[in-house]
């Protein structure tokens, strides 16, 4: 991202339920567990993650989005790799 782009980023109103699409590759923070699997809450949308490591909560991971329901703002993704952890 150029210096100019850095200044222009975020000049918009972002909703509370972001939507994604199958095929997206995202970096997300794993925020919790549900029904034995991991989830990443992105705003008020929810991404269920399969095959994440057992200790994935509070780590940042790369995932492949497999499916997404725009009406429910929920999706399903597959774990690819861990790239970081919580700031605290």
């Amino acid at each position, binding site marked *: *991202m150029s*210096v100019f782009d*850095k*200044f222009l*980023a*975020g*000049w*918009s*109103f*972002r*909703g*509370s339920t*972001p*939507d*994604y*699409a199958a*095929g*997206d*590759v*995202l*970096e*997300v*923070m794993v*925020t*919790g567990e549900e029904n034995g699997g991991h989830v*990443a*809450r*992105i*705003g*008020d949308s929810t991404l269920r993650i399969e095959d994440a490591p057992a*200790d994935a909560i*509070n*780590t*940042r991971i*790369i995932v492949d989005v497999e499916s997404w329901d725009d009406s429910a703002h929920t999706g399903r993704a597959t774990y690819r790799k861990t*790239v*970081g*952890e*919580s*700031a*605290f």
Partner: protein
Amino acid sequence: MTETRDAAPPAADGGDPPDGSEFGVGEQNSDDPRIEFRGGKWASTVPLAFFIGWAIFQSGVLGIGDTNGLVVGALIGTTLGMFLVRGDWKRYADTIFEGMTQRVAATAIVAWLWAGMFAQTLQVGGFVEGLIFAADALNVGAATFPAAAFVLCGLLATGIGTGYGATVAFVTLFFPAGVLIGANPVLLFAAILSGAVFGDNLAPVSDTTIVSAVTQDADIGGVVASRFKYAIGAAVPAFAAYLIAGSVMSGVELEGAVALRESANALGLVHLLSMGIVIVTAVAGRHIVEAISWGLLVAIAFNLLFGLSSASDIVAFTVTEAGSLSGLPVVEVGETAGVGGSLYSGAVGFFPLIVLTLLIVAMAQIMIRGGGFEAIQTFLLDRVATTVRRAELTMVLGTATINGMITINTAAEIAIAPYVARIGEKFNINGYRRANILDANTSALGYIFPWAGGVLVGYQVMVGPDGLGAEYGPEMVVNPIEVVPYVFHGWFLVAIFVLAAITGFGREYIPDRVSEEVSRA
């Protein structure tokens, strides 16, 4: 939003990737022993709670803005907590060391040392005098003086990164000139404070900017760029408000006007370039130490080249007796031996804040090891921050509350930073957004309330033994409570973030744009 990326961005500074060990929270699931407190996990909050109480009493009730005093409060609070520990006190003592050696504190400390040297070198290089020349050249009158003071103080504060320093410099040099030509003293003092808010919030060398970035795992340059929209969004209406209020609010009757040009020096404006080099280099992704070092080198070169300061203004070794080395430009003969100059005083000026930071980080670590941090976080996530909008409002109002109580703004920011990080992460709010929320209230409220440190340092210039009141008369002393409604930029900045949390303006999620690597020390 379907923009994707394949992997985390490369480190911009070659530093190690974050390992989540800051404050040790990333190690919550490790087998490290927790500290057992008499009274349960809430007792682990006693050291930090005692410190906050001390800070409120010292700065809020008594109006004493002394960072060293806060250090004593932190030391006593940390000691008190030890008496509540069950079993071996060694774990408690070890946790103090564990907290003090966290990398988040070291990163901020290194940046502060460089920022301090740079800021002081600009000061001795006549940057303020250059801004006064600009005001004189623009021929500002009584009505437009507050608006000009806001812009120029904002420029100074952005350059030197310290709102307190900018406030002292402008109240000392700019305020009396403005009052004497007919500007309203209350409005003028408030305008100076607004400029300090602007710089404290936006400058890459500001202590609060550095803390907000490193505690949210965001690069400092990217944080500065991302908060520009909020800063300018508050500054434009604030500037208009000062123009309007300046034409409505009358000044005081004083005899013997002092011309601005007495202290004006056009050459001081060359430091706009020194300041610009730091901002551009930092935003371009260079390590903050490298960015400031380039700015510092240029500032020193300008000072010496244009005669803005002597070599001994930058580094001075004072000896008591003349010798073979006393002919050197950096060696002086004086009554007391010592070292001085802008590099020395700039770095040393941050020592009290560095010690305080280490102690606050240690107290936070005690809370984490004792379970108090997790208990508060769970309460907030379960009961208060249940949606992303409520989470952002919680962060905004939480930082406002803490900063309203602890008036040394950097200390307040360090205390609340872990909660902003963890609550934000639970909604995948990215580091830039979290850093901006954290810093906005810290910068704004630190210069609004009568007990705020930024207000008190300016007030001290007016009421001190050799202050403006003693020199010019009581018209030059502004009651701190009077300025509260007129610190327009501060109020607009707070309002913008409340609105941003409600409307989603500027909101970015982690998948949208991942922060570059933090400029680690």
